[in-house]
């Protein structure tokens, strides 16, 4: 059996891939991992009230100083190609009560093909109004550095269609995208129901691409509005169920529904008192341009006091 060779060359120009860095990378990764673990043990876990949406955003931000870690998976079917399993790790931090910042690391496995790291995203959400209003706007700004092999379907935009995902990884990963994505998130909670609508505009900064557009809408509600007096895992109030729909709207020069894909997905979140949240969402393609089926699930944990722990590390709070 021939020895397995790992590809160390980065698919991104400007990303480290020299031999020197390749040897120091494990050490750096170990140090970073150790630091993260120490900080997480210092920080306290706290029960969060995580929204069940996968693609849609409501207007609620991360609590200040809290860090949420999440792993999320998407299994997708592919006509005229191999099914895939895409995944991301998410680090979401409440910088202030009006600003949440997140980093995503994305990857995917295409069956009968390969597993590839597909890039990172840096996302920021800013609450525009201080108090609750009839509709609450939040501004979303994201920078992405991803390859053409990215399949996490965190958003659907422009003329994204299923056929785009049939390209073998070896070819797709040669495409490098530096993308700016903006969204206006509108959301309202009334009588326990959350209704959210997101409008998306994204521009690939590499090449002369035009602004691509997309949307996501969602509605959700906890199964019970009153909290029970006892600490419990299976109480109805711990479950939030809903539905979301998302898709592309073409681009600046060809706005509309032609050559676009759309999905409808029931969603459910289970906020456990042990500080974990599980989310599940089976998604169904609504036209021939969409993947027929997406199964998405994620697990997350929120750590409060992470900001204070970092602050102490750098001498703050003494």
């Amino acid at each position, binding site marked *: 059996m021939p020895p397995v060779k790992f590809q160390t060359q980065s698919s991104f120009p*400007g990303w480290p891939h020299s031999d020197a860095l390749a040897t120091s990378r494990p050490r750096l990764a170990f140090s970073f991992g150790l630091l993260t673990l120490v900080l997480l043990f210092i920080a306290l876990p706290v029960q969060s009230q995580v929204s069940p949406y996968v693609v849609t955003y409501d207007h609620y931000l991360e609590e200040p100083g809290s860090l949420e870690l999440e792993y999320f998976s998407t299994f997708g079917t592919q006509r005229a190609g191999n099914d895939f399993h895409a995944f991301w790790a998410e680090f979401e931090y409440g*910088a202030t*009560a009006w600003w949440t910042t997140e980093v995503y690391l994305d990857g995917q496995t295409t069956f009968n093909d390969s597993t590839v790291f597909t890039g*990172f995203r840096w996302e920021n959400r800013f609450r525009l109004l201080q*108090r*609750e209003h009839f509709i609450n706007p939040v501004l979303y700004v994201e920078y992405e*550095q991803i390859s053409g092999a990215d399949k996490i379907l965190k958003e659907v935009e422009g003329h994204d269609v299923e056929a785009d995902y049939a390209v073998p990884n070896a070819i797709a990963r040669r495409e490098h995208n530096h993308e700016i994505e903006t969204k206006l998130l509108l959301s309202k909670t009334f009588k326990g129901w959350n209704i959210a609508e997101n409008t998306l505009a994204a521009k690939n900064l590499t090449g002369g691409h035009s602004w691509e557009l997309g949307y996501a809408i969602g509605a959700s509600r906890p199964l019970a*509005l*009153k909290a029970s007096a006892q600490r419990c895992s299976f109480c109805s109030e711990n479950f939030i169920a809903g539905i979301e729909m998302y898709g592309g709207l073409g681009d600046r020069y060809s706005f509309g529904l032609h050559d676009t894909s759309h999905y409808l997905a029931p969603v459910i979140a289970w906020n456990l008192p042990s500080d974990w949240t599980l989310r599940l969402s089976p998604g169904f393609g609504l036209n021939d341009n969409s993947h027929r089926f997406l199964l998405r699930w994620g697990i997350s944990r929120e750590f409060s006091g992470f900001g204070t722990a970092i602050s102490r590390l750098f001498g703050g*709070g003494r």
Partner: protein
Amino acid sequence: MTLRVSSILLLLTLDVTAQTNSVPAKAVPARSVPAKNDNSVYAELAKAPPKAAARRNPLEHDPDAVAAGGKLFSQHCAECHGDTAAGSKKAPSLYAEEVQQATPGALFWLLTNGVVRRGMPVWSKLPEPQRWQLVSFIKSLPPAPPPKPNLEQTPQP
């Protein structure tokens, strides 16, 4: 290179914001006197519109409301307001007169709207009945937490 610069920027951002969030530490007395910033947090209660402040707690007579509110408090509020609600360097005491004398409607309004500029998040993501349960819990707090024994003044044998 881009990756390294991004990592450094991220760490710096985290550090700056973390330091912004934490007020310099000082021992918090049992009935905490609000720090400079806290006064304005209490002052937010007075900004509740009269109609909102006049709302009655629909769970006022619910026998489970206080216990359920206590559970919600420990899950969502204790991190900043302290386990006993006596306050911490992040958030003020809920035993304070300003809080205890506020109407249930005003407390509900403040929970719903938060004090975003001062670091208190909007809690409208909790359904209305849960916010009223929190109000029930806050209003059930005694006028002041039991004072801690002052060991320095204890007569020595």
